[in-house]
């Protein structure tokens, strides 16, 4: 069997058919059926797992609306790129808490904590409070080193919310372009550009 034929045999030309890997000799018992996979390089259980996670919702509409407001406060639209919600960060957070159940209670409980704080302060939930009220609330939980007594749970929640928002935003096309990351393409690495070497005094290293 030459290489071209073997590549054919191992599926370069076959997308959906179960493929057969067959050595030329000896005997007839060499036929090996390789399991069909809908997505190259993905295991069956992974495909099934993703399908299952996408088949139900964890957050209710109120929670999703709150997450959306928070995500856009954390990463708003600016002159360089869009907002968290434009990058579909809330959808990512919905998926990731199902994928990583350890985030479920901190997120659900944190959202509830936030609403209770706002109800006590403003007689409104966080999402229904005015923008000024929302910012007043966020200012109290966004700065870990300045936290007032009794609000540390809010800081822990906001840290998680900030981290998930950043993870969700900078892993989208909008976020990657915002960062100015220009790799993940075939190229040739020739070392640090001369002007950068000079900038940091690394010419002789």
């Amino acid at each position, binding site marked *: 069997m030459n290489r071209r034929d073997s590549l054919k045999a191992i599926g370069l030309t076959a997308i959906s058919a179960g493929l057969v890997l067959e050595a030329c000799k000896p005997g007839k018992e060499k036929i*090996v059926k390789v399991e069909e996979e809908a997505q190259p390089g993905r295991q069956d259980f992974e495909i099934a797992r993703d399908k299952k996670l996408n088949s139900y919702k964890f957050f209710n509409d109120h929670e999703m609306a709150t997450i959306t407001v928070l995500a856009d406060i954390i990463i708003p639209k600016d002159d360089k790129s869009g907002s968290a919600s434009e990058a579909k960060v809330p959808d*990512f957070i919905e998926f990731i808490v199902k994928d990583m159940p350890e985030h479920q209670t901190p997120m659900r409980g944190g959202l509830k904590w936030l609403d209770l704080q706002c109800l006590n302060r403003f007689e409104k939930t966080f999402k229904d409070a005015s923008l000024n009220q929302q910012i007043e609330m966020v200012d109290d939980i966004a700065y870990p080193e300045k936290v007032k007594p009794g609000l540390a749970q809010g800081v822990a929640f906001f840290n998680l919310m*900030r981290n998930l928002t950043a993870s969700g935003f900078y*892993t989208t096309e909008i976020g990657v372009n915002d960062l100015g990351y220009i790799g993940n393409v075939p*190229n040739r*690495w020739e070392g640090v550009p001369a002007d950068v070497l000079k900038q940091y005094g*690394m010419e002789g290293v």
Partner: protein
Amino acid sequence: MNEFQIKKSGIEYDAIVVGSGAGGGMAGYVLANAGLKVLMLEAGAYFDPRIDSQQLKWPWESPRRGAKTTRPFGDFDASYGGWELEGEPYTQKNDSEFAWFRSRMLGGRTNHWGRISLRMGPDDFKPKDGLTADWPLTYQELKPFYDKVDRMIGLYGTVEGIESEPDGIFMPPPKPRLTELFIKKAAQKVGVKVIPGRGSVLTEALPNNKDRAPCFYCGQCGRSCKVYGDFSSSSCLVIPAVNTGNLTVITNAMVREVLTDKSGLATGVSYVDTKDLQEHQVRGKIVILGASACESARLLLNSKSTAHPDGLANNSGVVGKYLHDSTGASMSGYLPQLVDRKRYNEDGAGSVHIYSPWWLDNKKLDFPRGYHIEYGGGFRVPGYAFGWGMEEKNGTVPGKDGKMKAAGGYGAGLKDDYRRFFGTSVWMAGRGTAIARESNYCEIDPEVVDKYGIPVLRFNYKWAPEEVKQARHMQETFKEIMHAMGAVASETHDADTNYGLEAPGKIIHEVGTVRMGDDPKKSALNQWCQAHDCKNLFVVDAAPFVQQGDKNATWTILALSMRTAEYILQQKEKLNIS
């Protein structure tokens, strides 16, 4: 018809190879190319990097953005498997915490490994400190095979003339990234030697090979390579061997035991098809185990017979013993002076660009042997956890206006911080020699079987004070280097965490469970990796290692396996292979 029956093959192969990783792949390649009829059994799925690699996928192509939920090194990593496999447990003894990584796929763990390709040195084979047993061969005896592996597979590096870090036949190494220049400068300032990395990645065309293309610098060797630009056993050994017409591969074939006749010689193996659970027996004139150090030991211990009552090749009782994994500890952080750095593509090669071979004299230290340090950092394609912990960073560096700001925050200012800190990360990881000890071992758990009914391994492994002291020394070195370059460390480790010493097995360099030696009372294999007690049985993975050095095991596995395969060809008549 009886539904539960064993299918017996009528064919007798010249050789049956169990496992398709570095060791099994090399043995299969050499023997198939020499015209032997070889059957290779792989417990996992078929995998061809050309088709199955997740290379160049963007983070948004994964719903979890490449997170590690189902694969220990992330959604895009090439390993089917990990430290835990559904239905294939292992157990622990005496509070042991051995972690056993298994890749169930063609090419095994070579699809995702770091491609760091180091030779062991003369003293690694014949230690001068008397602490561990000699290998039954010298560096000089293995050197021609290292040379052949270098030429056949290709690696980059530089000739340095360091005796304990023997030079190979190298392609040019990739140049250091900016972060790595900072590391190199700082390390040298504190007396730590830094040299270009040694990685099995083609930085130029491999002579006489039309199947593999040179590296295109995506930095994603862990995903395996669609152009075969790096070494995976699947792409570089097994698939080419299949193309000779002499190697047959059966995937999803979990080998249960090695079959022997009354005289104690191996006659073949039995395996279960993991998809339809059909039992099979296949026959071979010789049997070659390359199932991984622990899996090969398990197979031997599970292959009991009248001729081999304690398991095959185990008259000495050493099978399973002397298990050892590299020590490992690490530190990461960031370089504040790199905020707002200029953007360019520095993905580079997917193996290390620089490293520090062991540089000290043990006479002045409180632990034996040594470790090397691997380094990296800079711009990487963002993935899950990008920007995580910004609240611990953005209060430490002045803003663009020169003023310090409160840590944490939100809004446009925070958004700018993510940009500013992008590409400032640095990391370093020590990989050291752990001493092979009889008291660290795997054995068959008398009570537990896996989902195929195969008795599982039980581990007993404790780090000794020597290894903890080595980890402490690593941390002290990391701190000095981080300090010398003005980096901020994200996390530091002290005595409470054994100085960040990873649990055994976490570095995935486990070796030594079916060790070689000249004395059949103290070893299972002779110097050709041939069982003392069963002349047509060979082991070609990392199980034969007597004692690792601080060198990653793969290059030595390849050289040893090639040497064993050539020995088999020389011994064809004695082994009844005509």
